[in-house]
């Protein structure tokens, strides 16, 4: 028998999905595979897919937890439409994922879990391995549970602990399949289970057992290899969107010389930002877990008045609760960043799924004329730069900024080129010096129209702010009709003028022509992939993606005017397209919408764009 490593097939990219019961450790398996992917130099993106319930009933479809990774020798912008390899630890994981794998995907199953009682729980009438439903797939049947127990027999672990490492058997198999080195993973075991050498040993043994099993069975005709991606030189790491968001804020606080204050209330899928900032008191970052979302933002407004870079983080239902307080920040013209990690709505909706349906709420969901800056992060790693920019705009323009991310960006991960904080743009808030004789609370900067920031504790600047309308310049309470109109217009213009301080909209593809595809926020990677593939196939199709939404980039109208057809793609019923219709009514817009709590797939976008191109 020859070593299968002789028969190596080179691929450009591949998608693997690890699926099992929510207690099976699939997230860890996936992240260990990601680490090894980093070491071989591939670009990659990942996405976890787990149930809203912490431990949904074992063995059922609703209890399946999945982790998908897309890796390749080129720039990878998405976690992949469908998996080329599925690891299914039980019948439910197979059932839950049949729609998310390619027609000829390789399926690795733990045959020990494919028994009568599990078929029922998963909703199968018969054994799916034998009823012909997997025709077309290469099914690798491995008695993973048995062999895991076998591998650790001599360690004399109890049954439960022994079974716990069966995910590492599967990982070993996939490592073999993709010619991966397991030394890094061993190192991880040694660090993670430092206090428990037996567990380190067990995990190593089981991983190796899986690796060797894959090598010996006939089922694997080949193994696969993917060359390193041509990434820019530099130091890289993997980040999820929520981690990147938290770090972007920490960087902005350091660069602006302000203490960070986060007032927040836990909510999926935003909680990790609060959790991450809670860890970093060494940077004088204070994370205040408030009693509700309202107290979260209002405490942040208090901290902002007192001179901090103040934030609040939430998801849709929490944004609803914060509306009134955002209005207070608009009126008091205090800097604050509100992060909304969007999820499926309305109401509690789909807490663990992603959507772009809070856009209108972010733009207009307040009483009165209450303009705020709205920006939307475009990828998991862009969350870092978006959080940084949101902070800069809030601090320099003295206004609330809403930063929209979404569940897919937040939990998905991506390769991140680590920047140096000193290389990020400087942040200079308009802080007033003590005893400034010219200080007036609402006397504005001529260019930006921002008001000055006079921080309590500073001599000679005592003043009051509040939610009642303010007299121009003095900031005294005023009910004067003309003053009110002037202030309403000024607050709007202050936000409009931010267009001078943000980048212009750029276009990928022809600068004028037939079709312009438009997206905003988190759909960037998937639309870009679809466009790149179509363009490689020789199609003429252009793409412009919006990160800055309020205000829009200065050249937006110009760009829109250059194309015969404009199609706006978003994960809602058409909120951004309607915003464009409102701002640029002179153009016609087509729209492509998906509101399933799921991101777009490259294939569906390509199919839709192709049909447009062929019309």
């Amino acid at each position, binding site marked *: 028998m020859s070593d299968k490593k002789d028969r190596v097939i080179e691929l450009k990219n591949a998608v693997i999905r690890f699926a099992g019961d929510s207690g099976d450790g699939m997230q860890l398996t996936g992240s260990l595979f990601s680490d090894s992917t*980093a*070491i071989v*130099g591939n670009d990659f993106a990942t996405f976890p897919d787990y149930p809203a319930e912490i431990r949904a009933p074992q063995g059922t479809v609703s209890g399946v937890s999945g982790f998908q990774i897309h890796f390749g020798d080129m720039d990878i912008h998405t976690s992949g439409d469908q998996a080329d390899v599925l690891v299914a630890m039980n019948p439910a994981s197979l059932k839950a994922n049949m729609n998310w794998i390619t027609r000829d995907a390789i399926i690795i199953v733990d045959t020990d879990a494919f028994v009568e009682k599990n078929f029922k729980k998963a909703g199968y009438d018969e054994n799916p391995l034998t009823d012909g439903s997997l025709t077309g797939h290469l099914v690798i049947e491995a008695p993973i549970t048995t062999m895991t127990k076998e591998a650790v027999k001599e360690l004399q672990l109890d049954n439960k602990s022994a079974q716990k490492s069966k995910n590492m058997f599967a990982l070993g198999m996939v490592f073999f399949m993709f010619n991966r080195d397991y030394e890094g993973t061993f190192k991880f075991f040694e660090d993670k289970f430092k206090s428990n050498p037996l567990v380190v040993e067990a995990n190593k043994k089981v991983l190796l057992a899986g690796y060797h099993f894959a090598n010996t069975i006939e089922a694997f005709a080949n193994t696969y290899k993917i060359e390193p991606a041509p*990434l*820019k*030189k*530099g*130091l*890289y*790491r*993997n980040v999820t969107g929520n981690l990147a968001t938290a770090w972007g804020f*920490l*960087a902005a606080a*350091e660069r602006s010389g302000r*203490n960070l*204050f986060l*007032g927040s209330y836990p909510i999926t899928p935003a909680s990790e930002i609060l959790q991450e900032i809670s860890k*970093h*008191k*060494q*940077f*004088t970052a*204070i994370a205040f877990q*408030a*009693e509700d979302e*309202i*107290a*979260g933002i*209002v*405490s*942040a*407004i*208090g*901290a*902002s*008045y*007192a*001179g*901090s870079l*103040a934030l609040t983080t939430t998801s849709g239902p929490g944004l609803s609760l914060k509306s009134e*307080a955002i*209005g207070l920040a608009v009126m*008091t013209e205090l800097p604050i960043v509100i992060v909304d990690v969007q999820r499926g709505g309305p109401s509690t909706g789909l807490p663990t799924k992603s959507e772009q349906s809070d856009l209108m709420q972010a733009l207009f969901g307040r009483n009165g004329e209450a303009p705020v800056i709205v920006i939307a992060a475009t990828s998991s790693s862009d969350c870092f730069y978006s959080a940084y920019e949101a902070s800069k705009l809030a601090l320099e323009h003295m206004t609330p900024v809403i930063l929209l991310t979404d569940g897919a960006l937040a939990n998905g991960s991506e390769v991140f080129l*680590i920047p*140096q*904080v*000193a290389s990020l743009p400087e942040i200079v808030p308009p802080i007033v010096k003590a005893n400034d004789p010219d200080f007036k609370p609402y006397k504005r900067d001529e260019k930006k129209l921002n008001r000055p920031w006079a921080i*309590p*504790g*500073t*001599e000679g*600047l*005592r*003043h*009051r*702010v*509040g*939610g*009642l309308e303010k007299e121009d310049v003095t900031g005294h*309470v005023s009910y004067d009709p003309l003053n009110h109109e002037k202030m309403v217009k000024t607050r709007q213009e202050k936000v409009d003028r931010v267009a001078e301080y943000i980048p212009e909209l750029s276009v990928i593809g022809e600068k004028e022509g037939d079709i312009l595809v438009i997206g905003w926020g988190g759909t960037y990677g998937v639309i870009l992939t679809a466009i790149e593939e179509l363009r490689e196939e020789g199609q003429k199709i252009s793409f412009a993606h919006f990160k800055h939404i309020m205000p829009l980039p200065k050249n937006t109208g110009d760009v829109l005017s250059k194309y015969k057809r404009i199609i706006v793609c978003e994960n809602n019923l058409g909120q951004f397209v309607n915003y464009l219709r409102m701002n640029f009514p002179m153009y016609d817009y087509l729209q492509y919408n998906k509101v399933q709590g799921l991101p777009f797939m490259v294939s569906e976008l390509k199919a839709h764009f192709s049909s447009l191109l062929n019309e």
Partner: protein
Amino acid sequence: MENIIETPKLALTKKDFESDRMVKWCPGCGDHAILKAVENVFPELGIPKENFVVVSGIGCSSRFPYYMNTYGVHGIHGRAAALATGVKLANPELSVWMITGDGDSMAIGGNHFIHVVRRNPDINILLFNNKIYGLTKGQFSPTSPEGSKTKTSPQGTYEAPFNPGELVIGAHGKFFARVVDTNIKMMSQVFTEAAKHKGTSVVEILENCVIFNNQIHALITSRDTKDENQLFLEAGEPMIFGKERDKGIVLRGTNLEVVKIGENGITEKDILVHDPHTEDSGIHVMLASMMPPEFPAALGVIRSVKSHTFEELVWNSVEHEKKTSKLKNVDDLLHTGNTWVKQ
């Protein structure tokens, strides 16, 4: 144990805190006297004038920050406690005063109120209790007595009222005091004690809304009944009251009772002595609950117990982490965990 902050005196006067804005409360409104008392107290606290921040919610009472020449934020309805917490956490050096009404803190802001008390940041809460919604012109509030006839309860209310003192103590409050708006001297004395207490101090002010709830506190405040209905508590002093100072409070079984000194063999020695500094809140809550006509209303500092403050714990943590963390800056953080170099 009590919790006291001592600060040196600065050469400040009332004038330093008077604002040039026209005070727009109704003539005769109790709020005017409260403003006077606060103006008396601020210059005496030894705190630089730029270190005061007065925050509020919404209501007649909550207009207060506009009438003080300090830093100030007039917030949104019910949320003053969150504002105050944010200011204090961001800069513990500031002397933070929170002005709120019975609607503001007992209704819409009830949640924030109990939580601020539970966390115990060093802020001073002045709760203007006129037992009515003043600013919205006369609807009942959560402190209106059951059966109160107001614009929204023409047949009288059907709900039991809150007693703020009970809420404060129930939420593990460390400082609770009560005063009447008719006695500027009493207010000044108690506000000063509230300011000196390290931790959240809540002072309930029985305030009269002349327009929508006139004389609601009359039994306690009016000239002819006040002596029989006010018990001014002082640490270490027996709980004696009455025009003739012939009445007192005793503990009988598990209840408080009003007794007459000299009757049934009762002497001054039998009267309960006030100890605001005891951890045990049993007597404190009973004192806070006392109301005429059965009892006198307890005034002065009912409870003042030592404890660490919220911002103290948070900032100690900050200092500790700064000293011990391996991460000196955000660049260090970005380099933690798994990183790899692309050549």
